[in-house]
Protein backbone atom coordinates (compact mmCIF):
# COMPACT_ATOMS: atom_id res chain seq x y z
CA UNK A 1 0.00 0.00 0.00
CA UNK A 2 1.31 3.48 -0.95
CA UNK A 3 0.48 6.61 1.02
CA UNK A 4 -0.54 9.98 -0.43
CA UNK A 5 3.03 11.20 0.05
CA UNK A 6 4.20 8.40 -2.24
CA UNK A 7 5.77 6.37 0.55
CA UNK A 8 5.09 2.68 0.94
CA UNK A 9 3.41 1.72 4.19
CA UNK A 10 5.77 -0.56 6.05
CA UNK A 11 2.96 -1.78 8.27
CA UNK A 12 -0.77 -1.42 8.13
CA UNK A 13 -2.97 -2.78 10.90
CA UNK A 14 -6.74 -2.71 10.61
CA UNK A 15 -9.27 -3.66 13.30
CA UNK A 16 -6.84 -6.13 14.80
CA UNK A 17 -8.35 -8.17 17.61
CA UNK A 18 -7.00 -10.89 19.82
CA UNK A 19 -8.87 -12.85 22.45
CA UNK A 20 -6.86 -15.51 24.25
CA UNK A 21 -8.27 -18.91 25.15
CA UNK A 22 -8.73 -17.76 28.77
CA UNK A 23 -11.07 -15.02 27.55
CA UNK A 24 -8.58 -12.18 27.95
CA UNK A 25 -9.26 -9.67 25.17
CA UNK A 26 -5.74 -8.37 24.59
CA UNK A 27 -6.50 -6.31 21.46
CA UNK A 28 -9.86 -4.64 20.89
CA UNK A 29 -9.74 -3.64 17.24
CA UNK A 30 -6.58 -1.55 16.93
CA UNK A 31 -5.70 0.45 13.82
CA UNK A 32 -2.38 2.05 13.00
CA UNK A 33 0.08 2.28 10.17
CA UNK A 34 3.80 2.88 9.92
CA UNK A 35 5.36 4.62 6.96
CA UNK A 36 8.45 3.26 5.29
CA UNK A 37 11.59 4.70 6.87
CA UNK A 38 9.82 5.81 10.05
CA UNK A 39 11.11 5.30 13.57
CA UNK A 40 7.92 4.42 15.40
CA UNK A 41 7.35 4.03 19.12
CA UNK A 42 4.62 1.72 20.36
CA UNK A 43 4.15 2.50 24.03
CA UNK A 44 1.87 1.27 26.74
CA UNK A 45 1.84 -0.09 30.27
CA UNK A 46 2.48 -3.76 31.00
CA UNK A 47 -0.35 -5.91 29.66
CA UNK A 48 -1.59 -3.18 27.31
CA UNK A 49 -1.31 -5.41 24.24
CA UNK A 50 2.02 -4.30 22.72
CA UNK A 51 3.67 -7.71 22.75
CA UNK A 52 0.49 -9.38 21.50
CA UNK A 53 0.38 -6.95 18.57
CA UNK A 54 4.05 -7.64 17.80
CA UNK A 55 3.44 -11.38 18.15
CA UNK A 56 0.67 -11.21 15.56
CA UNK A 57 2.74 -9.05 13.18
CA UNK A 58 5.61 -11.53 13.38
CA UNK A 59 3.24 -14.54 13.17
CA UNK A 60 4.07 -15.90 16.60
CA UNK A 61 0.52 -15.31 17.82
CA UNK A 62 -2.67 -16.15 15.90
CA UNK A 63 -4.98 -13.16 15.51
CA UNK A 64 -8.67 -13.39 16.28
CA UNK A 65 -9.72 -10.83 13.66
CA UNK A 66 -8.65 -7.92 11.51
CA UNK A 67 -5.85 -7.55 9.04
CA UNK A 68 -2.08 -7.00 8.98
CA UNK A 69 -0.11 -5.97 5.91
CA UNK A 70 3.66 -5.71 5.84
CA UNK A 71 4.96 -3.72 2.88
CA UNK A 72 1.67 -4.52 1.15
CA UNK A 73 1.85 -8.25 1.88
CA UNK A 74 -1.07 -9.59 3.90
CA UNK A 75 -0.11 -12.10 6.57
CA UNK A 76 -3.24 -14.03 5.58
CA UNK A 77 -2.39 -14.58 1.89
CA UNK A 78 1.30 -13.74 1.47
CA UNK A 79 2.82 -14.83 4.74
CA UNK A 80 6.17 -15.87 3.24
CA UNK A 81 6.69 -12.47 1.57
CA UNK A 82 5.50 -10.67 4.71
CA UNK A 83 7.89 -12.65 6.94
CA UNK A 84 10.83 -11.88 4.66
CA UNK A 85 10.36 -8.16 5.36
CA UNK A 86 10.53 -8.47 9.15
CA UNK A 87 13.31 -8.75 11.68
CA UNK A 88 12.24 -9.29 15.28
CA UNK A 89 14.06 -8.61 18.54
CA UNK A 90 11.71 -10.07 21.15
CA UNK A 91 11.22 -8.85 24.69
CA UNK A 92 12.49 -12.01 26.34
CA UNK A 93 15.82 -13.59 25.51
CA UNK A 94 15.00 -16.47 23.17
CA UNK A 95 18.48 -17.54 22.19
CA UNK A 96 19.61 -21.15 22.18
CA UNK A 97 21.96 -20.63 25.10
CA UNK A 98 24.00 -23.74 24.27
CA UNK A 99 24.65 -22.60 20.72
CA UNK A 100 27.68 -20.54 19.68
CA UNK A 101 27.23 -16.83 18.95
CA UNK A 102 28.37 -17.15 15.33
CA UNK A 103 26.20 -20.21 14.70
CA UNK A 104 23.10 -18.49 16.06
CA UNK A 105 23.42 -15.71 13.49
CA UNK A 106 24.45 -18.09 10.68
CA UNK A 107 21.48 -20.37 11.39
CA UNK A 108 19.06 -17.45 11.33
CA UNK A 109 20.47 -16.42 7.95
CA UNK A 110 19.91 -19.98 6.74
CA UNK A 111 16.28 -19.94 7.89
CA UNK A 112 15.80 -16.95 5.59
CA UNK A 113 17.40 -18.80 2.69
CA UNK A 114 20.75 -16.99 2.65
CA UNK A 115 23.57 -19.11 1.25
CA UNK A 116 26.46 -19.95 3.56
CA UNK A 117 28.92 -17.50 1.99
CA UNK A 118 26.57 -14.52 2.19
CA UNK A 119 25.47 -15.62 5.66
CA UNK A 120 29.10 -15.55 6.86
CA UNK A 121 29.63 -12.06 5.42
CA UNK A 122 26.45 -10.72 7.01
CA UNK A 123 27.13 -12.44 10.33
CA UNK A 124 30.58 -10.83 10.48
CA UNK A 125 29.17 -7.45 9.47
CA UNK A 126 26.53 -7.35 12.19
CA UNK A 127 28.54 -9.07 14.91
CA UNK A 128 31.30 -6.51 14.35
CA UNK A 129 28.80 -3.64 14.27
CA UNK A 130 27.34 -4.80 17.58
CA UNK A 131 30.78 -5.45 19.08
CA UNK A 132 30.32 -9.20 19.43
CA UNK A 133 32.79 -10.46 16.84
CA UNK A 134 35.42 -11.22 19.46
CA UNK A 135 32.89 -13.44 21.25
CA UNK A 136 31.74 -15.29 18.13
CA UNK A 137 33.05 -18.67 19.26
CA UNK A 138 31.55 -18.44 22.76
CA UNK A 139 28.21 -19.98 23.63
CA UNK A 140 25.32 -17.58 24.12
CA UNK A 141 24.98 -18.51 27.78
CA UNK A 142 28.40 -17.02 28.51
CA UNK A 143 27.31 -13.56 27.34
CA UNK A 144 26.18 -10.78 29.65
CA UNK A 145 22.57 -9.55 29.49
CA UNK A 146 23.51 -6.60 27.29
CA UNK A 147 25.49 -8.82 24.93
CA UNK A 148 22.55 -11.21 24.60
CA UNK A 149 20.33 -8.27 23.61
CA UNK A 150 22.89 -7.16 21.02
CA UNK A 151 23.15 -10.71 19.71
CA UNK A 152 19.38 -10.76 19.24
CA UNK A 153 19.67 -7.53 17.23
CA UNK A 154 22.45 -9.01 15.06
CA UNK A 155 20.33 -12.12 14.56
CA UNK A 156 17.30 -10.02 13.56
CA UNK A 157 19.34 -8.01 11.05
CA UNK A 158 21.25 -10.78 9.32
CA UNK A 159 18.70 -11.07 6.49
CA UNK A 160 18.58 -7.24 6.28
CA UNK A 161 14.85 -6.81 6.86
CA UNK A 162 13.01 -3.71 5.69
CA UNK A 163 11.10 -3.57 8.98
CA UNK A 164 12.86 -4.12 12.30
CA UNK A 165 10.66 -4.63 15.36
CA UNK A 166 12.31 -4.21 18.74
CA UNK A 167 10.31 -5.19 21.81
CA UNK A 168 12.05 -3.51 24.75
CA UNK A 169 15.55 -4.04 23.35
CA UNK A 170 17.34 -2.10 26.06
CA UNK A 171 15.60 -3.62 29.09
CA UNK A 172 18.21 -4.30 31.75
CA UNK A 173 21.02 -2.83 29.68
CA UNK A 174 23.45 -0.35 31.24
CA UNK A 175 23.50 3.29 30.15
CA UNK A 176 26.67 3.08 28.05
CA UNK A 177 25.45 0.09 26.04
CA UNK A 178 21.99 1.59 25.74
CA UNK A 179 23.43 4.78 24.24
CA UNK A 180 25.57 2.81 21.80
CA UNK A 181 22.52 0.77 20.81
CA UNK A 182 20.60 4.00 20.20
CA UNK A 183 23.36 5.20 17.93
CA UNK A 184 23.35 1.91 16.05
CA UNK A 185 19.57 1.97 15.64
CA UNK A 186 19.66 5.57 14.40
CA UNK A 187 22.27 4.54 11.81
CA UNK A 188 20.28 1.62 10.43
CA UNK A 189 17.13 3.77 10.38
CA UNK A 190 19.03 6.45 8.48
CA UNK A 191 20.13 3.74 6.06
CA UNK A 192 16.46 3.03 5.29
CA UNK A 193 15.27 0.39 7.75
CA UNK A 194 11.86 1.13 9.21
CA UNK A 195 11.90 0.58 12.98
CA UNK A 196 9.11 -0.10 15.45
CA UNK A 197 10.23 0.17 19.04
CA UNK A 198 8.47 -0.65 22.28
CA UNK A 199 10.17 0.49 25.43
CA UNK A 200 9.52 1.41 29.02
CA UNK A 201 12.30 4.01 28.84
CA UNK A 202 10.28 6.90 27.52
CA UNK A 203 13.41 8.99 27.16
CA UNK A 204 14.47 6.38 24.63
CA UNK A 205 11.26 6.75 22.62
CA UNK A 206 11.43 10.55 22.79
CA UNK A 207 15.06 10.57 21.71
CA UNK A 208 14.79 8.08 18.87
CA UNK A 209 11.28 8.03 17.48
CA UNK A 210 9.51 10.38 15.10
CA UNK A 211 6.09 8.85 15.58
CA UNK A 212 4.39 7.46 18.66
CA UNK A 213 1.35 5.34 19.35
CA UNK A 214 0.16 4.64 22.86
CA UNK A 215 -1.81 1.49 23.51
CA UNK A 216 -3.73 0.80 26.68
CA UNK A 217 -6.11 -2.02 27.55
CA UNK A 218 -6.04 -3.25 23.97
CA UNK A 219 -6.90 0.11 22.36
CA UNK A 220 -4.81 2.79 20.69
CA UNK A 221 -5.36 5.95 22.71
CA UNK A 222 -2.84 8.15 20.87
CA UNK A 223 -1.21 7.92 17.46
CA UNK A 224 0.62 10.94 16.04
CA UNK A 225 4.00 12.44 15.26
CA UNK A 226 6.17 12.75 18.35
CA UNK A 227 6.35 16.55 18.04
CA UNK A 228 2.54 16.79 17.80
CA UNK A 229 2.07 14.58 20.82
CA UNK A 230 4.55 16.52 22.91
CA UNK A 231 2.90 19.82 22.01
CA UNK A 232 -0.25 18.52 23.65
CA UNK A 233 1.58 18.55 26.94
CA UNK A 234 0.77 22.07 28.07
CA UNK A 235 2.44 22.09 31.47
CA UNK A 236 6.03 21.37 32.22
CA UNK A 237 7.88 21.37 35.51
CA UNK A 238 11.50 22.53 35.66
CA UNK A 239 13.94 22.21 38.53
CA UNK A 240 16.36 25.15 38.81
CA UNK A 241 19.65 25.00 40.69
CA UNK A 242 20.33 28.40 42.20
CA UNK A 243 23.65 30.09 42.85
CA UNK A 244 22.52 31.44 46.24
CA UNK A 245 20.07 29.95 48.76
CA UNK A 246 16.56 31.33 49.16
CA UNK A 247 14.44 31.35 52.32
CA UNK A 248 11.10 31.15 50.54
CA UNK A 249 9.77 30.47 47.05
CA UNK A 250 9.59 33.70 45.05
CA UNK A 251 6.31 34.84 43.47
CA UNK A 252 6.58 34.70 39.67
CA UNK A 253 3.66 35.80 37.47
CA UNK A 254 2.34 32.93 35.36
CA UNK A 255 4.38 30.31 37.20
CA UNK A 256 3.83 28.17 40.27
CA UNK A 257 6.94 27.84 42.40
CA UNK A 258 8.04 25.50 45.15
CA UNK A 259 11.29 25.72 47.10
CA UNK A 260 12.45 22.14 47.41
CA UNK A 261 15.76 22.96 49.10
CA UNK A 262 17.62 26.20 49.79
CA UNK A 263 19.22 26.17 46.37
CA UNK A 264 16.64 24.18 44.39
CA UNK A 265 13.52 25.78 43.02
CA UNK A 266 10.74 23.90 41.24
CA UNK A 267 8.86 25.94 38.63
CA UNK A 268 5.60 24.79 37.03
CA UNK A 269 5.21 26.49 33.63
CA UNK A 270 1.72 27.01 32.24
CA UNK A 271 0.77 27.30 28.55
CA UNK A 272 0.48 31.10 28.47
CA UNK A 273 4.08 31.89 29.42
CA UNK A 274 7.51 31.02 28.09
CA UNK A 275 10.94 30.52 29.57
CA UNK A 276 12.06 34.05 28.62
CA UNK A 277 9.38 35.38 31.02
CA UNK A 278 10.72 33.09 33.71
CA UNK A 279 14.33 34.19 33.37
CA UNK A 280 13.34 37.87 33.07
CA UNK A 281 11.44 37.71 36.36
CA UNK A 282 14.21 35.73 38.07
CA UNK A 283 16.76 38.31 36.85
CA UNK A 284 14.62 41.18 38.20
CA UNK A 285 14.62 39.51 41.60
CA UNK A 286 18.39 38.98 41.52
CA UNK A 287 18.06 35.18 41.49
CA UNK A 288 20.93 33.58 39.60
CA UNK A 289 20.27 30.20 37.95
CA UNK A 290 23.22 27.79 37.67
CA UNK A 291 21.44 24.99 35.81
CA UNK A 292 18.01 23.75 34.87
CA UNK A 293 16.43 20.37 34.11
CA UNK A 294 13.01 18.91 33.38
CA UNK A 295 11.51 17.37 36.49
CA UNK A 296 10.19 14.49 34.42
CA UNK A 297 10.73 13.35 30.88
CA UNK A 298 8.06 15.09 28.80
CA UNK A 299 6.84 11.96 27.10
CA UNK A 300 6.75 10.18 30.42
CA UNK A 301 4.56 12.95 31.80
CA UNK A 302 2.19 12.71 28.85
CA UNK A 303 2.18 8.92 28.96
CA UNK A 304 1.28 8.87 32.64
CA UNK A 305 -1.53 11.34 32.13
CA UNK A 306 -2.94 9.40 29.19
CA UNK A 307 -2.73 6.03 30.83
CA UNK A 308 -3.87 7.11 34.27
CA UNK A 309 -6.70 9.37 33.19
CA UNK A 310 -7.55 7.74 29.87
CA UNK A 311 -9.76 9.83 27.64
CA UNK A 312 -10.99 12.22 30.37
CA UNK A 313 -7.49 13.16 31.34
CA UNK A 314 -6.60 13.72 27.73
CA UNK A 315 -9.52 16.13 27.26
CA UNK A 316 -8.47 18.10 30.32
CA UNK A 317 -4.94 18.37 29.00
CA UNK A 318 -6.08 19.48 25.58
CA UNK A 319 -8.17 22.17 27.21
CA UNK A 320 -5.12 23.33 29.13
Amino acid at each position, binding site marked *: MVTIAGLMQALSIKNLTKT*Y*ANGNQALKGINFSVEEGDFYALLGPNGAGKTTAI*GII*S*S*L*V*NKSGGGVEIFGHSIDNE*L*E*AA*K*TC*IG*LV*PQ*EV*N*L*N*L*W*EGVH*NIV*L*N*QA*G*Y*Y*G*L*GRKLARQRAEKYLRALRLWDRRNDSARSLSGGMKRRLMIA*RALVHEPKLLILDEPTAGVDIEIRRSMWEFLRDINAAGTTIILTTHYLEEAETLCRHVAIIDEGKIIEDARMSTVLRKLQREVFVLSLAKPLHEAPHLDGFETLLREDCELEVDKGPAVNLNDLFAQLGDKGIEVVSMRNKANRLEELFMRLVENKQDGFKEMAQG
Partner: protein
Amino acid sequence: MNIALNIVAMQTIVRKEVVRVLRIWVQTVVPPAITMTLYFIIFGNLIGRRIGTMDGFDYMQYIAPGLIMMSVITNSYGNVVSSFFGAKFGRHLEEMLIAPMSNATIVIGHVAGGVLRGMLIGLLVTIIALFFTRLDVQHPFITISIVLLSSIVFSLAGFINAVFAKKFDDISIVPTFVLTPLTYLGGVFYSISLLPEFWQTVSLANPILYMVNAFRYGILGTSDINIGVAYGILLVFVVVLFTACVQLLNRGVGIRE
Protein backbone atom coordinates in the same frame (compact mmCIF):
# COMPACT_ATOMS: atom_id res chain seq x y z
CA MET B 1 6.68 -21.35 -2.23
CA ASN B 2 10.31 -20.30 -2.68
CA ILE B 3 11.95 -23.71 -3.16
CA ALA B 4 15.55 -22.47 -3.03
CA LEU B 5 14.87 -20.69 0.27
CA ASN B 6 13.28 -23.79 1.74
CA ILE B 7 16.15 -26.03 0.67
CA VAL B 8 18.70 -23.74 2.34
CA ALA B 9 16.50 -23.52 5.45
CA MET B 10 16.17 -27.30 5.61
CA GLN B 11 19.94 -27.75 5.23
CA THR B 12 20.39 -25.27 8.07
CA ILE B 13 18.08 -27.21 10.39
CA VAL B 14 19.81 -30.49 9.52
CA ARG B 15 23.25 -28.96 10.10
CA LYS B 16 22.08 -27.55 13.42
CA GLU B 17 20.72 -30.95 14.44
CA VAL B 18 23.93 -32.77 13.51
CA VAL B 19 26.01 -30.21 15.41
CA ARG B 20 23.72 -30.70 18.40
CA VAL B 21 24.05 -34.50 18.34
CA LEU B 22 27.82 -34.30 18.09
CA ARG B 23 28.09 -31.52 20.71
CA ILE B 24 26.27 -33.64 23.30
CA TRP B 25 27.78 -36.96 22.18
CA VAL B 26 28.04 -38.11 25.78
CA GLN B 27 24.24 -38.05 25.94
CA THR B 28 23.50 -39.11 22.38
CA VAL B 29 26.15 -41.63 21.32
CA VAL B 30 27.67 -43.18 24.43
CA PRO B 31 24.52 -44.43 26.28
CA PRO B 32 23.13 -46.55 23.40
CA ALA B 33 26.58 -48.00 22.80
CA ILE B 34 26.88 -49.06 26.46
CA THR B 35 23.27 -50.30 26.70
CA MET B 36 23.49 -52.38 23.54
CA THR B 37 26.83 -53.85 24.54
CA LEU B 38 25.18 -55.00 27.79
CA TYR B 39 22.24 -56.47 25.85
CA PHE B 40 24.63 -58.45 23.67
CA ILE B 41 26.65 -59.67 26.65
CA ILE B 42 23.70 -60.55 28.91
CA PHE B 43 20.89 -61.61 26.58
CA GLY B 44 22.95 -62.69 23.61
CA ASN B 45 25.95 -64.31 25.21
CA LEU B 46 25.08 -65.43 28.74
CA ILE B 47 21.35 -66.22 28.43
CA GLY B 48 21.44 -66.86 24.67
CA ARG B 49 23.79 -69.83 25.06
CA ARG B 50 21.11 -71.61 27.13
CA ILE B 51 18.32 -70.67 24.71
CA GLY B 52 20.08 -72.21 21.74
CA THR B 53 18.64 -71.37 18.30
CA MET B 54 15.58 -69.44 17.15
CA ASP B 55 14.19 -69.81 13.64
CA GLY B 56 17.40 -71.67 12.84
CA PHE B 57 19.79 -68.91 13.97
CA ASP B 58 21.99 -68.52 17.06
CA TYR B 59 20.07 -66.47 19.59
CA MET B 60 22.73 -63.75 19.45
CA GLN B 61 22.37 -63.58 15.67
CA TYR B 62 18.58 -63.59 15.96
CA ILE B 63 18.34 -60.65 18.37
CA ALA B 64 21.01 -58.50 16.68
CA PRO B 65 18.68 -57.04 13.98
CA GLY B 66 16.02 -56.37 16.65
CA LEU B 67 18.51 -54.57 18.87
CA ILE B 68 19.78 -52.48 15.96
CA MET B 69 16.20 -51.55 15.04
CA MET B 70 15.37 -50.80 18.69
CA SER B 71 18.32 -48.38 18.84
CA VAL B 72 17.29 -46.70 15.61
CA ILE B 73 13.68 -46.30 16.78
CA THR B 74 14.46 -44.92 20.24
CA ASN B 75 17.20 -42.58 19.02
CA SER B 76 15.20 -41.21 16.09
CA TYR B 77 12.26 -40.57 18.36
CA GLY B 78 14.39 -39.22 21.20
CA ASN B 79 16.34 -36.85 18.99
CA VAL B 80 13.33 -35.11 17.51
CA VAL B 81 11.26 -34.99 20.67
CA SER B 82 14.09 -33.54 22.77
CA SER B 83 15.37 -31.14 20.12
CA PHE B 84 11.99 -29.72 19.12
CA PHE B 85 10.63 -29.56 22.65
CA GLY B 86 13.91 -28.01 23.85
CA ALA B 87 13.57 -25.34 21.17
CA LYS B 88 9.97 -24.75 22.18
CA PHE B 89 10.80 -24.62 25.88
CA GLY B 90 13.80 -22.31 25.36
CA ARG B 91 11.72 -20.28 22.89
CA HIS B 92 14.43 -20.36 20.21
CA LEU B 93 11.88 -22.22 18.09
CA GLU B 94 10.67 -18.66 17.40
CA GLU B 95 13.78 -18.24 15.22
CA MET B 96 12.20 -20.71 12.82
CA LEU B 97 8.58 -19.67 13.25
CA ILE B 98 9.22 -16.05 12.23
CA ALA B 99 11.29 -17.10 9.20
CA PRO B 100 9.68 -17.44 5.76
CA MET B 101 10.33 -21.19 5.41
CA SER B 102 7.31 -23.48 5.18
CA ASN B 103 6.11 -25.61 8.07
CA ALA B 104 6.82 -28.71 5.97
CA THR B 105 10.47 -27.60 5.87
CA ILE B 106 10.57 -27.36 9.65
CA VAL B 107 9.18 -30.90 9.92
CA ILE B 108 11.48 -32.37 7.25
CA GLY B 109 14.56 -30.69 8.75
CA HIS B 110 13.88 -32.10 12.21
CA VAL B 111 12.95 -35.53 10.86
CA ALA B 112 16.16 -35.59 8.83
CA GLY B 113 18.06 -34.81 12.03
CA GLY B 114 16.29 -37.68 13.79
CA VAL B 115 16.99 -40.06 10.92
CA LEU B 116 20.68 -39.11 10.84
CA ARG B 117 21.02 -39.77 14.56
CA GLY B 118 19.07 -43.01 14.23
CA MET B 119 21.33 -44.15 11.38
CA LEU B 120 24.48 -43.13 13.25
CA ILE B 121 23.46 -45.09 16.33
CA GLY B 122 22.21 -48.00 14.18
CA LEU B 123 25.60 -48.16 12.51
CA LEU B 124 27.37 -48.01 15.87
CA VAL B 125 25.22 -50.85 17.30
CA THR B 126 25.83 -52.88 14.12
CA ILE B 127 29.58 -52.50 14.64
CA ILE B 128 29.18 -53.58 18.29
CA ALA B 129 27.05 -56.55 17.15
CA LEU B 130 29.82 -57.66 14.81
CA PHE B 131 32.09 -58.14 17.83
CA PHE B 132 29.63 -60.76 19.09
CA THR B 133 28.16 -62.40 16.00
CA ARG B 134 28.22 -62.60 12.21
CA LEU B 135 25.68 -60.70 10.15
CA ASP B 136 25.52 -61.47 6.42
CA VAL B 137 22.98 -59.13 4.92
CA GLN B 138 20.61 -61.15 2.75
CA HIS B 139 18.57 -58.32 1.23
CA PRO B 140 20.49 -55.02 1.35
CA PHE B 141 17.69 -52.91 -0.25
CA ILE B 142 15.08 -54.20 2.20
CA THR B 143 17.45 -53.72 5.12
CA ILE B 144 18.25 -50.09 4.23
CA SER B 145 14.75 -49.08 3.15
CA ILE B 146 13.03 -50.61 6.20
CA VAL B 147 15.44 -49.01 8.66
CA LEU B 148 15.07 -45.64 6.91
CA LEU B 149 11.28 -45.77 6.82
CA SER B 150 11.11 -46.89 10.47
CA SER B 151 13.42 -44.07 11.46
CA ILE B 152 11.25 -41.56 9.58
CA VAL B 153 8.08 -42.89 11.22
CA PHE B 154 9.49 -42.56 14.73
CA SER B 155 11.05 -39.18 14.04
CA LEU B 156 7.61 -37.95 12.96
CA ALA B 157 6.04 -39.51 16.05
CA GLY B 158 8.64 -37.77 18.21
CA PHE B 159 7.80 -34.49 16.52
CA ILE B 160 4.10 -34.88 17.37
CA ASN B 161 4.98 -35.72 20.96
CA ALA B 162 7.10 -32.54 21.16
CA VAL B 163 4.32 -30.39 19.68
CA PHE B 164 1.87 -31.48 22.36
CA ALA B 165 4.38 -31.58 25.24
CA LYS B 166 4.09 -28.78 27.77
CA LYS B 167 6.73 -29.91 30.25
CA PHE B 168 9.75 -32.20 30.22
CA ASP B 169 7.72 -35.02 31.84
CA ASP B 170 5.53 -35.08 28.74
CA ILE B 171 8.41 -36.05 26.49
CA SER B 172 9.33 -39.09 28.59
CA ILE B 173 5.81 -40.49 29.07
CA VAL B 174 5.39 -41.85 25.54
CA PRO B 175 8.87 -43.44 25.33
CA THR B 176 8.46 -45.00 28.77
CA PHE B 177 4.87 -46.19 28.66
CA VAL B 178 4.30 -46.75 24.94
CA LEU B 179 7.49 -47.04 22.94
CA THR B 180 9.49 -49.29 25.26
CA PRO B 181 6.70 -51.86 25.87
CA LEU B 182 5.82 -51.97 22.16
CA THR B 183 9.50 -52.45 21.27
CA TYR B 184 10.03 -55.24 23.79
CA LEU B 185 6.79 -56.92 22.65
CA GLY B 186 7.65 -56.29 18.99
CA GLY B 187 9.68 -59.43 18.44
CA VAL B 188 13.10 -58.02 19.27
CA PHE B 189 13.94 -60.95 21.58
CA TYR B 190 11.63 -63.69 20.33
CA SER B 191 9.66 -65.02 17.39
CA ILE B 192 5.91 -64.59 17.85
CA SER B 193 5.53 -68.21 16.77
CA LEU B 194 6.53 -69.02 20.38
CA LEU B 195 3.37 -67.29 21.66
CA PRO B 196 -0.08 -68.83 22.07
CA GLU B 197 -2.33 -68.12 19.08
CA PHE B 198 -4.29 -65.40 20.85
CA TRP B 199 -1.16 -63.42 21.72
CA GLN B 200 0.21 -63.95 18.22
CA THR B 201 -2.93 -62.22 16.90
CA VAL B 202 -2.60 -59.42 19.46
CA SER B 203 1.05 -58.98 18.52
CA LEU B 204 0.07 -58.32 14.91
CA ALA B 205 -1.49 -55.05 16.06
CA ASN B 206 1.94 -53.81 17.14
CA PRO B 207 3.51 -51.82 14.28
CA ILE B 208 7.00 -52.29 15.68
CA LEU B 209 6.65 -56.03 15.10
CA TYR B 210 6.51 -55.36 11.35
CA MET B 211 9.54 -53.08 11.41
CA VAL B 212 11.68 -55.45 13.47
CA ASN B 213 10.70 -58.48 11.42
CA ALA B 214 11.10 -56.78 8.07
CA PHE B 215 14.55 -55.59 9.12
CA ARG B 216 15.42 -59.05 10.39
CA TYR B 217 14.27 -60.44 7.04
CA GLY B 218 16.61 -58.01 5.28
CA ILE B 219 19.58 -59.23 7.31
CA LEU B 220 18.85 -62.88 8.13
CA GLY B 221 16.19 -63.74 5.56
CA THR B 222 13.65 -64.86 8.19
CA SER B 223 10.46 -63.11 9.32
CA ASP B 224 7.20 -63.71 11.22
CA ILE B 225 5.27 -61.37 8.95
CA ASN B 226 4.69 -60.53 5.29
CA ILE B 227 7.27 -57.97 4.07
CA GLY B 228 4.77 -56.33 1.73
CA VAL B 229 2.45 -55.65 4.68
CA ALA B 230 5.39 -54.11 6.56
CA TYR B 231 6.13 -51.72 3.68
CA GLY B 232 2.44 -50.85 3.40
CA ILE B 233 2.15 -50.07 7.12
CA LEU B 234 5.33 -47.99 7.12
CA LEU B 235 4.32 -45.94 4.08
CA VAL B 236 0.85 -45.28 5.51
CA PHE B 237 2.40 -44.17 8.80
CA VAL B 238 4.86 -41.87 7.01
CA VAL B 239 2.09 -40.15 5.03
CA VAL B 240 -0.37 -39.88 7.92
CA LEU B 241 2.17 -38.69 10.49
CA PHE B 242 3.84 -36.20 8.15
CA THR B 243 0.45 -34.71 7.24
CA ALA B 244 -0.45 -34.53 10.93
CA CYS B 245 2.85 -32.78 11.79
CA VAL B 246 2.40 -30.13 9.10
CA GLN B 247 -1.23 -29.57 10.01
CA LEU B 248 -0.35 -29.17 13.69
CA LEU B 249 2.23 -26.51 12.80
CA ASN B 250 -0.16 -24.79 10.39
CA ARG B 251 -2.76 -24.56 13.14
CA GLY B 252 -0.12 -23.49 15.65
CA VAL B 253 -1.00 -26.26 18.10
CA GLY B 254 1.34 -26.10 21.07
CA ILE B 255 3.48 -23.37 19.54
CA ARG B 256 1.28 -20.35 18.88
CA GLU B 257 -1.21 -18.76 21.23
